[in-house]
């Protein structure tokens, strides 16, 4: 059998690109997702356990225990006396992801021994959500514009250093990002297909998003105006006929969404109203965290207005942002043309009718992006948590960047029409490489210091430190201190002040062989032979306490990223 030549393979690939969007694209999306998931799995061991993860590991174990009780003992598990002890822990966050963390750890680590580490079992659902977001982003881009846009968008999303970092964690930030873009995508498909199946799917996915993280409360502010605009003529006609017609997908979101939310969170099955009220009030009056921005420590609202824009510039690769800008200008021009034609028709002037989009995709993407970032411009919003809270905006950012890339690639192909197909293919490959190598290199290099790392536009990690941008949070870099110094140099049985790391995180790192088992953690520098300080501006006070407690201000060792201190290790003199 003769293998196809390179040009024949390229032509076949091009023909494939001309086929209608369908099952092939799910294969492409799945391949992209699987590649990303594999990458995440192979790098997970290098990342210490964050504070929040240790609470979710614990919650996941308890919740999974209840699910097992339900399957093994049936109705016995449904008594309030069985539900509350299992579900009361960490009930300030919905249960879906924590249940998945726990079930994954139980099945893949404990029962089937497919994963060597319990932590990887806990983290796998979060990683799968990152992969699912890549898949959905591809499908959205492929359907909205073309496959090239879809692939570019998926890769742009995957190669954002902060996305890559958070995608490793058993937390909710990447899961809500995945749920957000999936909900937007399913809603968009529901406006196209207009059947009960897609409408129901919208409600179900919205319910899953509600069950993932509270960002989902804002989704209706994007989806409802969009659906009403798409169906504006039908709504107007029905109103004229004396009826109120609401898009089915919105009805589904309003009815099915809350049902899914309640169904998957057994804690809410008793005292429902009071417990939902507590959940809402907890987040309306959430405690504040410290966050450094431009050399100043913020503790509470208002957010500086420049926080989100500067942090996006400082953490998303520049070429991605440039292509996002190009794509955004393209979509803005298209929107302006439509508006202009509409205005001319209104004034009864002759006007060309630009090709319309019955699904109003641009409007949906704009609303989805604006609603995801909008709360961070409100004066009442504090800046705790940094970039992770607006991650749901990033798939849309990547989609628009994908559109920008497609414009560049199309322009290049048009300019090179005189070249042979083979040379044009080579040129396009070079274009792909030139655009994706920098995000790939930056993302690879950022790990596992994804919260300390900044993009070349602001000078990299050292540039971020020069600007006074947050170095890290969550206390996970103690693993790096152990790997680089403590495991080799600390005296046997030494006591270690573990600073921002939780007791459970330290214990798990010891269980999994990341930290020497004889190093026992202590809660104050005064008790310690070795003391860690994980550098953040507001943690300087701990640094100074260590000076007094250990009698020295000179670290014995510093974990650095690109020469910037991440963790200092002090030894008692």
């Amino acid at each position: 059998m003769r293998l196809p030549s390179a040009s024949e393979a390229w032509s076949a690939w091009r023909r494939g690109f001309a086929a209608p969007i369908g099952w092939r694209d799910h294969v492409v999306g799945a391949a992209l997702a699987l590649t990303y998931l594999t990458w995440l799995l192979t790098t997970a061991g290098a990342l210490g356990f964050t504070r929040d993860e240790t609470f979710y590991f614990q919650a996941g174990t308890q919740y999974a225990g209840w699910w097992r009780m339900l399957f093994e003992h049936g109705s016995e598990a449904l008594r309030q006396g069985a539900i509350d002890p299992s579900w009361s822990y960490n009930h300030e966050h919905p249960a879906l992801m924590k249940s998945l963390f726990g079930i994954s750890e139980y099945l893949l680590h404990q029962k089937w021994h497919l994963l060597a580490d319990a932590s990887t079992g806990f983290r796998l659902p979060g990683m799968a959500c990152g992969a699912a977001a890549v898949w959905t982003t591809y499908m959205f881009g492929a359907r909205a514009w073309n496959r090239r846009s879809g692939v570019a968008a998926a890769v742009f999303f995957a190669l954002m250093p902060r996305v890559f970092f958070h995608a490793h964690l058993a937390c909710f930030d990447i899961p809500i990002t995945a749920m957000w873009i999936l909900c937007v995508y399913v809603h968009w498909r529901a406006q196209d297909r207009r059947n009960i199946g897609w409408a129901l799917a919208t409600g179900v996915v919205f319910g899953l998003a509600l069950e993932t993280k509270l960002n989902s409360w804002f989704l209706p502010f994007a989806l409802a105006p969009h659906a009403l605009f798409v169906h504006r003529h039908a709504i107007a006609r029905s109103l004229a006929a004396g009826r109120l017609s609401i898009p089915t997908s919105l009805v589904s979101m309003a009815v099915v969404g809350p049902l899914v939310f309640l169904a998957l969170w057994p804690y809410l099955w008793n005292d429902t109203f009071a417990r939902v009220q507590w959940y809402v009030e907890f987040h309306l009056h959430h405690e504040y965290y410290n966050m450094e921005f431009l050399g100043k420590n913020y503790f509470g609202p208002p957010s500086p207005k420049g926080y989100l824009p500067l942090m996006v510039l400082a953490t998303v690769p520049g070429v991605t942002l440039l292509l996002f800008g190009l794509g955004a200008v393209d979509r803005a021009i298209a929107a302006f043309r439509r508006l202009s034609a509409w205005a001319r028709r209104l004034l009864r002037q002759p006007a060309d009718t630009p090709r319309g989009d019955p699904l109003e995709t641009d409007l949906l993407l704009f609303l989805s992006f604006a609603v995801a970032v909008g709360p961070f411009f409100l004066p009442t919003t504090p800046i705790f948590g940094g970039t992770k809270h607006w991650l749901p905006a990033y798939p849309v950012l990547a989609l628009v960047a994908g559109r920008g890339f497609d414009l560049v690639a199309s322009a290049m192909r048009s300019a090179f029409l005189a070249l042979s197909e083979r040379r044009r293919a080579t040129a396009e490959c070079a274009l792909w490489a030139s655009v994706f190598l920098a995000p790939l290199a930056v993302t690879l290099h950022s790990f596992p210091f994804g919260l300390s790392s900044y993009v070349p536009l602001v000078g990299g990690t050292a540039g971020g430190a020069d600007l006074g941008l947050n170095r890290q949070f969550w206390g996970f870099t103690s693993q790096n201190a152990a790997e680089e110094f403590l495991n080799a140099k600390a005296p046997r049985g030494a006591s270690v002040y573990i600073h921002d790391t939780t007791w459970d995180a330290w214990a798990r790192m010891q269980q999994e062989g990341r930290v020497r088992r004889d190093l026992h953690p202590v809660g104050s520098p005064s008790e310690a032979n070795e003391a860690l300080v994980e550098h953040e501006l507001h943690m300087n006070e701990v640094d100074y306490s260590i000076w007094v407690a250990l009698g020295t201000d000179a670290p014995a060792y510093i974990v650095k990223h690109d020469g910037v201190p991440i963790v200092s290790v002090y030894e008692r003199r």
Partner: protein
Amino acid sequence: MPAAGLLELGAHAAQTQAVVPGRDWEAARDYVSQHAKPEDLVAFAPRWADPIGREHFGPAIATIEREARPDESRFPRAFEVSIRGAHVPALRTWRPSAEQHFGGVAVTTLENPAPLPIIDDLVSAVRPDRMRVSAGDRECPFVHMPTQSGGLGFGPAIPGDRFGCPGGAFVGVSVVADLDYVPHRCIYAPPSGGTVRLRFLGVRFGRALSGHHALYVEAEHLKGAPITVTFSVGGSTLGTVVHRDGEGWKQFEFDTGPLSGRQEDLTADITSSGERRLYCFEAATR
């Protein structure tokens, strides 16, 4: 667009290769250790590089007294050790007299245009032969106890060598983080809802008594009761200064011209009615 991508890739490569190697820091340390006198300042820039400076220069050069200085005025000369072209903002007006480069590390010698030498540093007087402490009508003995410290929110470490008062009040030397999280070595003397009296023995006076005071950074946000400090000599009040939450590392100064050249006991009465008044001050005669 390809150019933009490649430019970013090139910038990334350049930035990640631009790390200052340890040998440059050590060469700079050798130079500073040969030239710096005990009264000189050694300071690192940018601020985020300070731990690296302390790591390489060690506690004998990067002393806590230099690192946690009250301000720069007492130093006649400074060795500014910097990377990435950064400078210590407080030394901007000082006159450079020499500059040496050790790979990526620059050492600039700077002359203080108006040094204010100190005569007696009260922080150094926190020891049993130089100071007495009382709370109410009870003496607070000098004790050697374990240091007490904690994590975020604990406040400055409570030093092991301290004057311990009945009811839990104490006085000792610690390092406080001010509102900007800058360290200052100071006399940690929380008044614990009453008055703590510090009597410094045989202080040598000059034309002024000047100092700074602050609360631990998180206590500064509490909007609690102010701290009042009254300095007196021989029953005559030199002056009173009040610290209110949010004022940070606040300077004060009193004229001691009439006492100049004399050696007298100096009393500081620290009073506050509030809770968690984690107060720290430094003062020196000039």
